[in-house]
């Protein structure tokens, strides 16, 4: 054995160190982690930083109001103005309170509905589980403000100055009061009903994974049903509820559609609509202050939530589907419950669409009789006496361009998002336990804390000029892709991680023993085994992007407009029928996309939703 002794090679210590470092650096997960860190710095950290800088820097339009200042000086003007100035109450504090009220209200409504329904479906002998499950994912396919639009059709009221009657008023003759037609209540209901899907899926997965012996043990110990529910079941599903809570809260916080449709017409502003109106007049300094307030609010909520619940998330909740021994018997209440649930779900999933479609056949808004029936808004040629001369949507070139933009935006961002998800999942899972992996995972979580519209705002400041080798992207289609990808990084990484976790590490190790290099291992082993997860993620990403509005509303230009932003523009111009028709088109496209993508490798929206938790 002496022939192999170390004395043969007199390598110096630093050479050995260099080799070790180089080997570490070329480890696939390290390379990928470093690449992702750079990407995420560009996409998230730097824009955020630039936004903060903008709020304390004197800009050209500020020169008029700040005497003696020169361009680029540091200033506290915007912060003073927005937080302690005369307009602070209207510009910041009222919207802040409104945002809080709406987010909390919608989240609790969603929790109540989703959680309750999940419990009924999983834990009782209620019939018709499949149809309940199917109907539960429908809201996710619709844009979040679909229900808001339908609400508008139903409860529009002449109580609002300049208002026209909605269906309700038309048939009953009673003008709904303003609190019913606009403002907090309708926005809460519209958002809450939309987002209950998250709670339903998360809580039912968590309930399914609870080993019923845990509850039976409580039963044997003599605890009553209510006590078991409170002391055993509830704490076990708490992580799932927490996930749903953060997700719903941060989504409603940054949501723009609902508040814009139902709040703005009566001057009920949230942070998101206030942000938009400031940005609309290029008042970036003020707008960014609002965006930062929104971000801070959202971050605080997530952090409080984490403090209360403990860990941010637990992968363990999902997975091992426990065996369910006992289901609570509803007995005589069975028909009552099933009818009630399906009725509620129907109201959420189908009724809005029926109302919207119906409204598109009305020549003039406010008149819902058959004499007013027309196909003009679908097929009519431009007529200046109707809706400012907008042609029917099926004859409108702009609509086709918008549809094409929506589709290619969704495909591109889902594809890139999928690739990033694969990379992040691999880097995080393979590096598990290292500081690098933890850092990457945390970095990938940041966009989660940034409400949609604020995230869009961040990007305005970023890409107006050429920046570190990147061309100025403002106004381009590419910018929309970039922002959509960046905002979805948390979901991509979650999906990637949970897909990677399902592949036991021995499978890759076995390949590496056989001499396969990193690329061969990925191509032949890891990718084939994880691809169903990624198809689901791709699908989820596609649907989410198709109906995304808050994120891109500040960034679209007429040539890059997508269907979702077009409905908003139609609504703002008072072309209600076109808006509603466009949203129907959007939903149909999403359904088609869903049907096509689900065909690949067993991908499903439900799986995607569950693993993105």
């Amino acid at each position, binding site marked *: *054995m002496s022939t*192999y002794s*170390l004395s043969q*090679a007199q*390598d110096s*210590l630093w*050479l*050995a*160190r*260099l*080799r*070790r470092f180089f*080997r570490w650096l070329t480890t696939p997960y390290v390379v990928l982690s470093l690449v992702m860190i750079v990407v995420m710095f560009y996409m998230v950290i730097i824009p955020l930083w630039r936004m903060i800088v903008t709020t304390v820097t004197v800009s050209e339009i500020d020169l008029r109001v700040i005497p003696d200042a020169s361009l680029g000086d540091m200033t506290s003007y915007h912060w003073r103005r927005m937080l302690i100035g005369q307009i602070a109450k209207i510009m910041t504090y009222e919207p802040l309170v409104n945002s809080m009220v709406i987010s909390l209200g919608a989240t609790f409504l969603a929790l109540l509905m989703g959680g309750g329904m999940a419990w009924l479906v999983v834990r009782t002998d209620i019939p018709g589980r499949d149809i309940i499950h199917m109907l539960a994912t429908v809201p996710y396919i619709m844009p979040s403000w679909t229900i808001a639009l339908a609400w508008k059709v139903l409860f529009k009221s002449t109580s609002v100055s300049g208002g026209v009657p909605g269906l309700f008023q038309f048939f009953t003759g009673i003008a709904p009061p303003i609190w019913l037609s606009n403002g907090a209540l309708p926005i809460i209901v519209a958002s809450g009903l939309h987002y209950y899907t998250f709670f339903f899926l998360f809580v039912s997965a968590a309930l399914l994974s609870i080993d019923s012996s845990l509850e039976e043990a409580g039963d044997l110990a003599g605890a009553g049903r209510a006590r078991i529910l409170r002391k055993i079941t509830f704490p076990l599903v708490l992580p799932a509820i927490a996930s749903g809570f953060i997700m719903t809260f941060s989504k409603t916080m940054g949501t723009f559609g609902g508040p814009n449709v139902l709040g703005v017409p009566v001057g009920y502003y949230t942070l998101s609509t206030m942000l938009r109106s400031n940005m609309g007049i290029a008042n970036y300094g003020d707008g960014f202050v609002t965006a930062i307030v929104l971000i801070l609010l959202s971050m605080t909520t997530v952090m409080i939530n984490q403090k209360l619940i403990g860990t941010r998330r637990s992968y363990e909740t999902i997975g091992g589907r426990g065996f369910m021994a006992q289901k609570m018997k509803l007995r005589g209440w069975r028909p009552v419950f099933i009818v009630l649930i399906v009725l509620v779900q129907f109201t959420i999933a189908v009724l809005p669409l029926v109302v919207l479609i119906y409204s598109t056949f009305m020549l003039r808004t406010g008149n819902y009789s058959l004499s007013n029936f027309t196909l003009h808004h679908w097929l009519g040629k431009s007529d200046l006496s109707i809706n400012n001369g907008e042609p029917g949507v099926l004859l409108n070139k702009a609509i086709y361009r918008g549809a094409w933009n929506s589709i290619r935006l969704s495909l591109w961002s889902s594809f890139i998002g999928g690739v990033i998800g694969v990379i992040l999942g691999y880097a995080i899972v393979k590096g598990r336990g290292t500081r690098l992996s933890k850092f990457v995972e945390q970095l990938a979580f940041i966009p989660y804390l940034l409400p949609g519209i604020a995230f869009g705002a961040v990007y305005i400041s970023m890409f107006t000029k050429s920046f570190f080798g990147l061309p100025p992207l403002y106004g381009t289609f590419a910018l929309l892709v970039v922002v959509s990808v960046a905002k979805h990084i948390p979901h991509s990484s979650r999906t990637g991680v949970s897909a990677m976790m399902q592949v*036991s590490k*021995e*499978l890759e*190790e*076995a*390949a*590496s*023993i*056989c*001499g*396969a*290099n990193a690329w*061969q291992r990925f191509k*032949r*082993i890891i990718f*084939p*085994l994880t691809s169903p997860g990624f198809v689901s993620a791709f699908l989820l990403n596609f649907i989410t992007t198709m109906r995304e509005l808050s994120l891109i509303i500040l960034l679209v230009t007429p040539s890059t407009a997508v269907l979702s932003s077009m409905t908003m523009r139609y609504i703002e111009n008072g072309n209600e029928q076109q808006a509603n028709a466009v949203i129907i088109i959007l939903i149909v496209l999403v359904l088609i996309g869903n049907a096509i993508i689900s065909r690949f490798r067993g991908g499903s929206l439900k799986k995607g939703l569950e693993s993105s938790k």
Partner: protein
Amino acid sequence: MPEPFIIIENITKTFGDVVAVDDLSLEIESGQFITLLGPSGCGKTTLLRCISGLEEPDSGQIIIGDKVVFSRKKGISLPPGQRDLGLVFQNYALWPHMTVYKNITFALEIQKMSKAEMDQRVKQSLAEVQMEGYEDRYPREMSGGQQQRIALARMLAYRPSVFLLDEPLSNLDARLRMDMRTELKRLHYDSNATTVYVTHDQLEAMTMSTKIAVMKLGVVQQFDTPNQVYHYPSNLFVADFIGNPKVNLLEGRVIGQDLVEVGHFHVPVNTKDATGDVVLGIRPEDIAISLEPVEYGEEFVAYSVLPSGADTTIIARQEQYELSVKEIGVSNIEMDQKIWLCFKKDAINLYDKQSGNLINAD
């Protein structure tokens, strides 16, 4: 003495604060069947993974054949694929999305072998594990035992010069395990590949190995032939770990040449130069039972009698002492019967009470 084929020098591997392998050195000769044996957490699997290259040790050096595959000092660590070895995992790690054929040819494809030769290799290696005709099955379509055989075939197909096996039989039921032990031993005999086998099952270790390395807390306690490990365990840990029923350990004191006092009775032992407090290690089969008083026989009571067909284990008690005794065949001793036990003088191992090390070795 033949040249060692695998040389492990001063390998240490820690995970956080836990030292899994502690400054361990081992030399394995070509063609040997080496078993790393120990309780869970003793570092045996970690050591195997260090040899395979799936884990990088914190220090030391590993040489396989004429290649330095790992050296901390030189900063070398070859990837597993360049170490010319095969590994069978505890859970088989067959790729679920590939057929048996694809599983087996994976490594061959990477070596860019021709299709004809691959077919030939698949046939041959399937024959070696008696799984002919299973080429088109997917792993989920086979039983655990069959999957195990395919995992072996996958390794055999590319003919590595070192076989590494990580508890390959632990997921099989008792009957299949016996069959597979037979097959594995035969396979090793036919291929003569240097084999490192990890297990916590002493029976597997005893029946198959050329040499056993008994490990505890990342340190090799004894590295010897099964026979030596069984009859001359080098310390109390090894003595206690090996053997079923367990060895009888009696604390006593050397009171004269070849005489040890245990409680109030005396046991004749080869004491060599031992003095002071000692522990006697007596295998159950090294105690003879007499139904009448005999010289040097100690009176015990049969507390329990456990026949198992081929032999019978008698649990004998006297005050605080409880001994297992093994008799061949069916015993006619009844429970609560008085019996006299005689210890075979030459078979008793003597351990230092303080260090736990064997002190009357030849």
